[in-house]
């Protein structure tokens, strides 16, 4: 005979897993999501009277990965990187960090619902700029994927989850295989002692671009060439960094020749016709009207 129902047991299990915020300035508001290492909650910062996101580790209290992540993010002050506000330890011994509560949608969900090709490419460009900023500060993300990117209501992009990021000034775990299948560069997935490289993130950015393009109609050849170059098997064949990838996307958007693809004379004519289609249509309309008037006037 069961004294409590399944629903009650489920509720008790859920409640037991909630963080104990007693003695902190935070008040639990809800659960935002769960990952492999921890859970992210929405909490109210009573002192500053604002909602923030709180990431709580599920693993051993001694695990200082969260603190390391907070340190990485703290040094990266950029509009595309979610700022960390606080790190600490809860009364149940678990580590936590609080950060800005990001409003928006995960990139994979955003891409499933809306966004034409120019909007999607603009998102990738902003993502490239953010990642390039991190690279300039000696940080390689190593786990870029659509689930780790948030898109705001105005198309603003924020890169999340720097938990496995690698710092050039603290190169500890070079052999660690960290990342997500499908978005990891081959040399990254293979592990080994190779030092992480900016091109690992370039590969992931190319894979994200491929993911975004897969949702729509067949993309133009030049765009596919950009994906192929960003996701090249050999690191040396990829773009040297995210800004080079962003620049090629910019050239594509401006109707210019991209560096990733060779161009036949026919391709060039087609590209220029597309770029200047409004002017061409107007000129053709003018010539057609002139010819028509001459023919009609001559009869």
């Amino acid at each position, binding site marked *: 005979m069961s004294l409590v129902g399944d629903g009650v047991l489920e509720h008790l299990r859920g409640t037991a897993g909630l963080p104990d915020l007693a003695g902190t300035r935070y008040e639990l508001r809800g659960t935002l999501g769960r990952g492999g290492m921890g859970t992210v909650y929405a909490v109210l910062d009573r002192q500053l009277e604002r909602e923030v996101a709180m990431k709580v580790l599920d693993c051993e209290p001694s695990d200082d990965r969260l603190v390391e992540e907070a340190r990485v993010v703290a040094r990266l002050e950029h509009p595309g990187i979610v700022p960390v506000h606080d790190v600490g330890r809860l009364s149940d011994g678990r580590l936590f960090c609080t950060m800005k509560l990001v409003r928006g949608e995960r990139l994979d969900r955003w891409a499933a619902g809306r966004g034409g090709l120019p909007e999607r490419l603009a998102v990738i460009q902003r993502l490239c700029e953010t990642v390039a900023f991190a690279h300039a500060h000696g940080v390689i993300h190593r786990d870029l994927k659509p689930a780790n990117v948030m898109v705001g209501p105005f198309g603003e992009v924020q890169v999340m989850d720097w938990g496995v990021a690698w710092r050039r000034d603290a190169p500890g775990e070079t052999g660690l295989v960290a990342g997500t299948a499908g978005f990891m560069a081959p040399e990254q997935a293979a592990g080994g002692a190779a030092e992480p490289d900016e091109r690992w993130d370039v590969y992931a950015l190319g894979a994200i671009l491929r993911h975004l393009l897969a949702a729509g109609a067949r993309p133009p050849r030049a765009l596919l060439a950009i994906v192929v170059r960003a996701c090249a098997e050999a690191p040396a064949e990829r773009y040297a960094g995210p800004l080079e990838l962003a620049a090629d996307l910019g050239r594509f958007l401006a109707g210019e020749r991209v560096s990733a693809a060779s161009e036949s004379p026919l391709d060039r004519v087609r590209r220029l016709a597309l770029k200047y289609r409004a*002017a061409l249509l*107007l*000129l053709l309309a*003018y010539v057609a009207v002139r010819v028509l008037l001459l023919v009609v006037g001559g009869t």
Partner: protein
Amino acid sequence: MNKPILGVLVGALLGLIDGASAWFYGPEIQAQIVGIVIGSTFKGLITGMLAGMLARKVQSLPIGIAFGLLVGLALSWAVASMGDESGKHYYWEIMLPGSLLGAIVGFATQRYGRAPEVQEAPR
């Protein structure tokens, strides 16, 4: 080159070509070709200047094209309504190409030419 000057140059050039193309309409028109070319050039010049001034304020290709088309149409109507020496009017022959040239000038001023620099607010 700023947008109004670009508009004046493009408008005047296209107006000149448009006016000169009237030569193909036959001897009756050829006799008046000088007046037609001067009028058409002046019409293009005015359209280009107005389209260029709009392009300084509004950055929108569709609005620029529509504005050029309407200005071209209005000026062409004004010219066409005057008629020739015999009192004959050439509404279609003047208004159709005139409005399309206005649209081309509107396109050119939106797409090309130097936009005014944004002034920083005084601190």
